[in-house]
């Protein structure tokens, strides 16, 4: 037989009574357990589909954002390329930028590439 711990013997009766009242644990019927578990399983069985729906809801905006980012990086529609080509910082890209690049001892290939963009008929339209 298990002998009670010595310190429990020293606890006051009042405290022991309060502790006993506080201990409200009750034995659960196994059938109740099963019902609760079955309910929980039914509830969570529907979760993955909802989660998939949530993912689908976000998939389109995320794909659109990714496509926009790629388009910006590849096509540079907001003048990012032109800003990079503005070597002399004049606010416009013309042959003076290629000239400035050539004067800065840049390699001929870079200078020629910039000049080619400047005279390209597909890249810019004038206001003539």
């Amino acid at each position, binding site marked *: 037989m298990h002998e009670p711990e010595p310190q429990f013997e020293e606890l006051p009766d009042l405290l022991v009574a309060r502790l006993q009242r506080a201990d409200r644990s009750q034995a659960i019927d196994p059938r109740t357990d099963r019902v609760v578990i079955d309910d929980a399983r039914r509830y969570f069985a529907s979760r993955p589909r909802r989660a998939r729906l949530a993912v689908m809801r976000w998939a389109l905006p995320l794909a659109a954002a990714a496509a926009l980012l790629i388009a910006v990086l590849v096509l540079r529609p907001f003048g990012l390329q032109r800003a990079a080509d503005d070597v*002399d910082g004049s606010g416009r890209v*013309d*042959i*003076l930028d*290629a*000239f400035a690049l050539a004067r800065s001892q840049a390699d001929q290939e870079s200078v020629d590439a910039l*000049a080619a963009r400047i005279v*390209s008929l597909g890249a810019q339209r*004038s206001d003539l």
Partner: protein
Amino acid sequence: MRSRSLAVVIVAIAALAASFGLLAQQQAAARFAVVDVYVDSTAPLAAWQFELRERHGEMQVVGVENGDSRAYTQAPYYDRAVVDRGAADRIIVASFSLRPAAELPVGRARVATVHVRLTGSAAPDFQLQLVAAGAADGRPIDAKITLDTRTGR
């Protein structure tokens, strides 16, 4: 039946004759011209860029060649791919020289010659714009741009 066949043949011959006439007219209207472009600057001209077009769009640029100045040894920059395709109804031409200011052209200098094919029957109305002109130190300078036309081949 025979008269119907005869009518078809007559119409076909007339259409053929009309198309030959139209073709001959177009060939007669198409001609070549040479456009000499000059930049006039009081400061030594180290860089320049111009755009040339024809108001009615009846121009096809077929070639671009360098000007007179020995400071500009390289052929000017222009969109060769579009010119080679025969699709240049306007042209942007530019060049620069890294030579010292003393060797750069001052005053009126022919910077380029543009060879064009004109398709319209009316006299061409060229529009020429000086996009940029720069001094040897890279700063923009004021300059005037003009053109002279000659009859081509």
